[in-house]
């Protein structure tokens, strides 16, 4: 595991009596996208601030590209690209000037700097607007510039802190595609979000964080297995009595539980798509006229609910 780009070990950060990050540990391998999924205030940004060496940890360690990261160290920061949640750009500078400034701060100079700025402008689709001041950009363009600055130094670890907050669907899609492409090129990505769909789409592994603690960690499927991996079939009737059909529904192999009322029933099953036809047929045979059939499969939202007892957007 020494090849891991990022190793976070037992990280703790307190603000007064509040423990914002509590014994958080995870690793990210090259080319891997790791998602930190949790609601606002869960401790994601504080964790990232320690990973990026912006604030000191009260306990625990962060290692980036094999080098310990603290606010006083500069060398591991050369391997890091940070895309903060805020639009950390100068609105009165042009896109090119913003990139050139942060490129210089990363140590790029001369021809190398100019070349890299041109590459990034093309990558984020702002080459034709490079001479416009960034305050004249749309929200999505500003987001792209914000991301572009994080890519200037060709980081081995890219940290994206909720990069799609407040972004229109089109720009959001473009950002997610960019992240997928970067990960495909071998860049390790640490991605924080409270959008379940983004975590499911992008992340090879996901850490679920709440109240400063990493509640669970794994691939999507591993996490879903934590809640038992069962599906739900909801039936809504407009004629007949579903309570009368409940006994026969329980006898169908794969059905684990049935909660029925006269006009509705909820079935907990092993594999809903495989069983739904048999369930509908059984109910119909008992004289029930079905108006509504709904299949619900577990997702990260239900995993989060299962682990913390609250929703991601609570």
């Amino acid at each position, binding site marked *: 595991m020494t090849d891991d780009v990022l190793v976070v070990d037992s990280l703790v950060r307190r603000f007064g009596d509040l423990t914002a990050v509590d014994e958080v540990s995870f690793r990210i391998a090259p080319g891997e996208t790791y998602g930190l999924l949790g609601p606002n205030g869960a401790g994601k940004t504080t964790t990232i*601030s320690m990973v*990026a*060496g*912006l*604030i000191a940890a009260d306990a625990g360690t962060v290692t980036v590209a094999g080098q310990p990261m603290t*606010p*006083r160290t*500069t*060398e591991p*920061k*050369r391997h*890091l690209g*940070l895309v*903060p*949640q*805020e*639009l*950390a*750009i*100068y*609105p*009165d*500078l042009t896109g090119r*000037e913003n990139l050139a*400034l*942060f490129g*210089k*701060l*990363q*140590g790029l100079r001369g021809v190398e700097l100019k070349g890299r700025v041109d590459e990034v402008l093309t990558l984020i689709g702002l080459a034709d607007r490079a001479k416009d001041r960034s305050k004249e950009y749309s929200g999505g363009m500003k987001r792209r510039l914000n991301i572009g*600055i994080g890519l200037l*130094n060709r980081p081995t670890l890219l940290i994206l802190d909720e990069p799609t907050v407040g972004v229109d669907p089109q720009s959001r899609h473009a950002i997610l595609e960019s992240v997928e492409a970067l990960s495909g090129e071998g860049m390790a990505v640490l991605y924080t979000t409270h959008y379940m769909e983004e975590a499911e789409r992008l992340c090879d592994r996901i850490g679920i964080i709440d109240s400063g603690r990493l509640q669970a960690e794994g691939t999507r499927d591993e996490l879903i297995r934590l809640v038992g991996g069962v599906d739900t079939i909801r039936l809504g009737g407009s004629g007949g009595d579903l309570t009368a059909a409940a006994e026969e529904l329980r006898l169908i192999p794969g059905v684990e539980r049935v909660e029925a009322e006269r006009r509705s029933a909820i079935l907990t099953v092993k594999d809903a798509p495989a069983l739904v036809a048999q369930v509908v047929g059984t109910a119909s045979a008992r004289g029930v006229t079905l108006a509504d059939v709904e299949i619900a499969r577990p997702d990260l939202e239900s995993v989060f609910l299962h682990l913390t007892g609250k929703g991601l957007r609570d």
Partner: protein
Amino acid sequence: MVAGTELRLFLRDRSNLFFVFVFPLLLVLMIGLQFGEGARSGRVAVSGAGSDLQSGLVERLEDDDVVVSDLAWDDALALLARGRLDAAVRVDAAAATAYDAGEAVTLEVVRGSAGNAQVVEQQVRSAVDSLRADRGRLLALEDAGVPPDRAASAVEAAEGQVVAPELEVTSVDRLSQEFEGMGQFEFGASGQLLLFTFLACLGGSATLIQARRLGVVSRMLAGPMTSGELVAGQILGRWAIALFQGGYLMVATSLIFGVDWGNLPLALLVLLLFSLVAAGAAILLGTLLENEGAAAGAGIGFGLVLAALGGSMFPLELFPDTMRAISRITPHAWAYEALADIQRRDGGLLDVLPQLGVLAAMALALAALGGWSLRRSLARAM
């Protein structure tokens, strides 16, 4: 890098253009016209129908740098009442005739109420005395049998041969000594230099708050840069703004108003240290406040109060003793005194060393305090 960016942002802000490039020069001009020595040139109307007496009087007044106009008597009185003239002299026909005849002449003079009017009245008296003396010399020659045309040329030739004694006046008045050697625009130029250099720099405190609010500062710290380097960059940024504003005013006032800054390297050293004080103050203000609007308002307020206390709006030399002692809490007062020494009294490095020392101490203290406060605010912002 950070310093260059700060200067670029400062110059790119269009609202700054008037207050950086135009407004200070307008103030220098206005103050120069009010306090400068040009304002002491008398303005006199000499009314009359044209005579030797009138032309002789005008000639002598103009020799004394008095601005003379030929107006109708009523017009002259009207301008006098509006304060546009210091004195009006009427040379009527009777006086002109009496003068030509060598008889006693009485001229009517009306003096204005401006502070300068008494001096101008004395200039009119001197001109009349000079006329009378010339007239007396001519009459003496004519009485001795010299023909009038030869008498006039003899007097003119004699005047060319006589070298008037030069007067070296030393005033025992402290104020006169303080202002000795000051040109018309010098007070305005040095005062506005200090006022606007400090103001421009304090205005930079708002951009620091903006950079913190936008997360730009955090982003910089996520790169291979220590917090010490970031603090130094922020201070350098404000220093660059202050030096630009001060340097511009030195060049512009020198070219437009002919202001003499004395020993230029020494004057620049004063500007360097004063600007560093301003940079430290700007960082401190930008870290103590969290709101850009509040910082901009406080910057202007502090800037104006310190400038007023420090002699940038009203000469320190005219302050009561208590106020002058209080003024020493401001960097403006120390810089003002140093510039006054350099500009008016050809002061050298040793003469202004105490002022430079105090400014350097203030600069170091404020830069250290500003840096410490910036580090604290960065820690809070994370």
